[in-house]
């Protein structure tokens, strides 16, 4: 067969083939037409077979040997870099060592190689600029066979993505991690650095201290000095709409102007959503191009699936992912502050573990009954003292349930003081109101009683409004309702006690079930134990 007969051309091809295997750079000026055609075909076929080759031949890649480190073990691989774990011989500390993936350099054009090397260099230069508790620190930079490597802290733990996929984190823990990461990102922004690829995969949580650390500055950019590297990178799912538009248009100029802190803030919001739901932020069954198109139009999965995400967190997420960058948080610190506020929100359940059930099943029925009883007593014109006792008797189950359900710990003290002072204030205000009315209507006890109910409702309206400032926003509407109720009772004074009693019972039930400060969660239990 002719094929098996060696000839000069085949021998030249074989030489070229061997040169490529050896990683020699072939001088294009010295090759003939057939050879240059061969190089073109080689690089074309290699581009599309290389990923498959790597998948099939894992373990075949040569692990570099660094003089400062013991044997290296591969622990991760990204689009650009490969990360190893190794023991630093002098310090006896385990570090993570990052190199450019050799296959990304092989057969790339000289410009391509330079671009990759520049970006890699920028990664450690930017990461080394900031020292922050929640940013993986860079330790050392070195070179091996013209290839730069750098070492950084080895984080023994798992990424936020793995943790959220396994559902091994509670909502409070995720929010706590994201709050700290947002503050780290804010620090980066203050130093003029954009991260550019914030996603759960790039947030590592240290197992021993439960400390989140942000890593992978491979796509980071400095807003000052250093040039913006051309090309749109980053993971589509976490890419801001303006970036997605630029990616679709392949517009370099557009990209240079739109890369702002707002894009990082967008990614923070999507990261929070994705960590809370354990879902990918992209619609499944979409091709990458369709995903980019949805994102650039602001059509996001984030807006459609809120699952069990608490209302305040969902608001914060939606503010991050606003289509117009100027509608997002101005700084990552503001986002972090909102998360802090959510973390620090009052949690009655933590300090009054049984209050929810007591409010619903004891206080609410008692208030309804005392309303009905007061109405009946008034209509029967019994002795005044019994009626007033019935009215103010309603405070006993309320205070009783506070007393019975409260935790006897120091840390619970301030939350308890808040609850006690608001409702003791309500009680004392009502008693003095009753006393004043009784004195004003000296000769008509019934008149004083009927006038008391609208005033009592008005006092309640004030209390609920006061609570809405710091606590559940629904208290505002409950306050409005009680304001309206005061007028209604004044118009229908004879059934005032019934209206009041039933409304009070209903309000108790609504608060017990609606105010998420009463909703028990595992985090609270683990904290209280």
């Amino acid at each position, binding site marked *: 067969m002719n*094929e*098996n*007969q*060696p*000839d000069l*051309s*085949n*021998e030249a*091809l*074989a030489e*070229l*083939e*061997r040169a490529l*295997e050896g990683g020699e750079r072939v001088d294009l000026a010295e090759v003939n037409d057939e050879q240059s*055609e*061969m190089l*073109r*075909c*080689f690089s*074309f*076929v*290699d581009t*599309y*077979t*290389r*990923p*498959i*080759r*790597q*998948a*099939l*031949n*894992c*373990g*075949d890649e040569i692990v570099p040997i660094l003089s400062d480190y013991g044997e290296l073990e591969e622990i991760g691989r990204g*689009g650009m870099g490969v990360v190893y774990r190794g023991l630093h011989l002098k310090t006896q500390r385990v570090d993570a060592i990052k190199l450019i993936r050799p296959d990304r350099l092989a057969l790339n054009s000289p410009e391509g190689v330079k671009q990759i090397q520049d970006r890699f260099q920028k990664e450690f230069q930017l990461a080394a600029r900031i020292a922050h508790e929640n940013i993986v620190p860079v330790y050392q930079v070195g070179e091996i066979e013209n290839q730069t490597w750098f070492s950084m802290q080895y984080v023994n733990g798992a990424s936020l993505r793995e943790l959220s996929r396994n559902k091994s984190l509670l909502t409070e823990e995720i929010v706590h991690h994201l709050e700290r990461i947002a503050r780290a990102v804010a620090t980066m922004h203050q130093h003029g650095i954009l991260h550019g690829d914030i996603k759960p995969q790039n947030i590592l949580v240290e197992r021993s201290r439960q400390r989140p650390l942000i890593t992978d500055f491979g796509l980071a950019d400095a807003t000052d000095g250093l040039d913006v590297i051309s*090309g*749109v*990178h*980053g*993971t*589509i*799912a976490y890419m801001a709409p303006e970036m997605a538009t630029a*990616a*679709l248009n*392949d517009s370099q100029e557009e990209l240079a102007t739109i890369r702002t802190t707002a894009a990082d803030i967008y990614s923070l919001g999507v990261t929070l959503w994705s960590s809370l739901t354990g879902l*990918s932020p*992209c619609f499944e*069954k*979409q*091709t*990458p*191009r369709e*995903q*980019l198109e949805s994102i650039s139009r602001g059509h996001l999965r984030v807006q459609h699936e809120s699952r069990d995400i608490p209302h305040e967190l969902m608001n914060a997420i939606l503010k991050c992912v606003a289509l117009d960058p100027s509608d997002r948080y101005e700084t990552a610190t503001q986002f972090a502050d909102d998360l802090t506020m959510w973390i620090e929100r009052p949690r009655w359940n933590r300090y009054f573990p049984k209050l929810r059930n007591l409010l619903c099943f004891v206080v609410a029925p008692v208030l309804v009954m005392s309303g009905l009883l007061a109405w009946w007593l008034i209509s029967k014109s019994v002795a005044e003292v019994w009626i007033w006792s019935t009215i103010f008797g309603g405070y006993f189950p309320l205070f009783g349930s506070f007393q019975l359900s409260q935790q006897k710990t120091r840390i619970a003290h301030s939350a308890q003081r808040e609850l006690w002072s608001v409702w003791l204030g309500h009680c004392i205000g009502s008693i003095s109101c009753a006393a004043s009315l009784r004195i004003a209507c000296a000769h008509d006890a019934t008149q004083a009683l009927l006038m008391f109910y609208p005033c009592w409702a008005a006092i309640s309206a004030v209390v609920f409004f006061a609570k809405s400032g710091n606590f559940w926003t629904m208290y505002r509407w409950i306050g409005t309702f009680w304001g309206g109720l005061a007028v209604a009772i004044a118009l229908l004074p004879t059934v005032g006690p019934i209206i009041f009693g039933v409304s009070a019972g209903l309000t108790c039930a609504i608060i017990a079930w609606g105010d998420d400060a009463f909703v028990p969660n595992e985090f609270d239990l683990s904290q209280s134990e």
Partner: protein
Amino acid sequence: MPLIDTNLEDNIRKLRPVLLTLAEALISGTYRDELEASDLVQQTLVEAHEHAKLLETFGDGQFFAWMRTALRHNVLDAVKQLNSKKQNVHRKVRAADIEDSFIRLDQLLVADETSPSQLLQRNEQIAEMLAAIQQLPDQQRKAIILKHLRGKSLNEVAETLESSESAVAGLLHRGRAQLVASLEDQNRE
């Protein structure tokens, strides 16, 4: 007889050469004399027909994922069967490697992870490349698979194919030229 959707038939026709190249690449080393790639793929396709109802509901990506999983099981089953016949430490290692290979392949093809805009169509082009390899003449195909999918050196390919290095260089060059031509044709269409 399960009712076969024409769409499913289309998908199977498109994927058959892709799976065949994958299977050939996988067994090209240790098992090349004992396992037949086309048998493994055929078995996988028969299973796809049996699950026609389920597969009809899958999108293209998920369909490919299902086929890969099915192929993986078939390859591993075949390998395990061979291993139980003859005791060989080398083989045990290879079975674990095949499992790893599929896991890496799946990671590589997951849409969520693909990022830069220039890689948008990557998966599709990889599949096209794998399919086009099946259209090459026998020797060229073997050489390309060994060299580009198994990462063997020219010397090793020549040894496996029992041919000279220069002849293999010629095979590789002609095979690559044809692949480039057929893929460029497809993209022009």
